[in-house]
């Protein structure tokens, strides 16, 4: 069963033109460790479908896109081990005590970049990023994206570039702080700050999910932000004008693989700058006692010049999901809005002078 489950997969991979994983066929033929092969048989639900239920983590240090200077999808064992050790050494370094006589941080900001906005964030101990390289079919991966072969998201269309520019301009405008509903969905505790589909990790924390199955439905609960996506088995998509928060997911089984097709995303959601035409196909395949191989293909002709595909191992967890129970406006949202009011007053005073 192990081989029959893997063979079609490796054929598909080769068909996708992954010259860079020329060794995939060989690896797929390799037998899993004896202990795993002996102890694991694919569990099935009462209706005979593979049992995907349980609590899983998609946390990994393997980035979505391959760094431009890394040529190969597959890392050597040594390369992967060094990356993992570097992450652990960094954690140890950040655990070191600070100077108890340290002064307040620098006036004008501490030099942080990105969304932290020059004021830093908070201690590393709050974080739980993936500290393992993703391993799929025995390969240690340098990127989650496997196709195109360079592991990069394909170029955006001119239309998508214009849309991105318009979104960026809107986000820079002062109006963004004029109303709580102008704030991003995550800040308002409505949806995770990672995409709900596909299930790529956020590289910060709580990259955990639970799958519950019935013959008619599959529920995928992401810990962040308690996002429960309900997949209908069979049927057709909703009319185009109906746009649920997480899009509309319908599923079917192809052999022992669960295939989920999602469209009808709302305008407030996007993945990597996608449009309302975003279409995601996900494939869930249980490959051993501890692992679901998760594969996703993203298509959006009005955003990306070509589709792209990625793979992520979901590893079984021996812990429960904690309720995330996001409290909308847990001070931060109010602080952001009142901060903007304060800023307006300050600037107003300046102008009057």
């Amino acid at each position, binding site marked *: 069963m192990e081989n029959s489950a893997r063979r079609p997969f490796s054929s598909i991979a080769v068909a996708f033109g992954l010259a860079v994983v020329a060794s995939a066929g060989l690896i797929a033929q390799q037998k899993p460790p004896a202990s795993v092969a002996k102890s694991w048989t694919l569990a099935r639900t009462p209706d005979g479908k593979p049992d995907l239920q349980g609590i899983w983590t998609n*946390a990994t240090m393997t980035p979505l*896109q*391959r*760094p431009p*200077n*890394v040529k190969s999808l597959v890392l050597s064992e040594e*390369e992967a*081990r060094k*990356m993992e050790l*570097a992450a*652990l050494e960094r954690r140890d370094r950040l*655990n070191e*005590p*600070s100077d*108890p006589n*340290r002064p307040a*941080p*620098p*006036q*004008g900001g501490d*030099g942080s970049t990105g*969304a*932290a*906005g020059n*004021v*830093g964030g*908070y*201690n*590393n*101990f*709050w*974080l739980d*990023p993936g*500290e*393992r390289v993703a391993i799929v079919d025995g390969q240690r991966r340098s990127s989650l994206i496997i196709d195109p072969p360079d592991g990069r998201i394909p170029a955006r269309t001119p239309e998508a570039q214009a849309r991105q520019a318009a979104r960026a301009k809107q986000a820079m405008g002062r109006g963004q702080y004029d109303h709580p509903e102008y704030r991003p969905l*995550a*800040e308002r*505790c409505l949806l995770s*700050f990672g995409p709900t589909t596909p299930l790529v990790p956020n*590289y*910060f924390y709580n*990259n*955990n999910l639970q799958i519950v199955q019935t013959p008619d439905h599959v529920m995928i609960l992401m810990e962040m*932000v308690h996002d429960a996506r309900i997949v209908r088995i069979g049927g057709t998509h909703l009319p185009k004008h109906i746009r649920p928060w997480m899009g509309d997911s319908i599923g079917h089984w192809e052999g022992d693989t669960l295939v989920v097709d999602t469209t009808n995303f709302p305008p407030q959601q996007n993945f990597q700058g996608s449009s309302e035409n975003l279409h995601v196909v996900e494939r869930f395949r249980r490959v051993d006692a*501890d692992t679901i191989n998760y594969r996703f293909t993203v298509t959006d002709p009005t955003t990306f010049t070509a589709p792209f595909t990625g793979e992520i191992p979901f*590893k*079984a967890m*021996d812990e429960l999901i*904690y309720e*995330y129970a996001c*409290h909308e406006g847990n*001070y*931060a*949202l109010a*602080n*952001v809005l*009142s*901060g*903007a009011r*304060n800023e307006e007053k300050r600037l107003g005073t300046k102008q009057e002078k």
Partner: protein
Amino acid sequence: MSMRHIIGAVIVCAGLAVAGRTVLAHHAFGAEFDPNAPIRLQGKVVRLEWVNPHTWIHMEVVRDGKPEVWMVEGGTPNTLLRRGITRDTVAVGTEIIVDGYQTKDHSLKRANGRDVTFTDGRKLFMGSSGTGAPRDGRDPTEGGTKPAPKKPGGR
């Protein structure tokens, strides 16, 4: 390309190489806190709000000879709960030092907990690796270069 390049590039892309000892949160910290209002607070914990999306530590400090209660923003409690750390791990009355930036609305006594430590400089909690993925001892890197404390943060 050297190994160093591979490691560096992959880590950067994974979003792990954040500046200094502090990290980015789930909302716009730059919109919430004022880079021109750095602050250092020292005082006793009076209350912990162990809620999502952000933990808040309330502490009493003395400024200009008067006691004030300040609130300090931290991260999600879920990651700490997985390490066995609850809001009872830090007792009310524990003295801590915080450096951060005050909210843009200066009428609020609130700041981000850029670095939160005990008075001897030790971090209030310890970061640990692992996401619940199975650990079977086959991987020599399991547990990190130093043993990850099970119940960090305590004395």
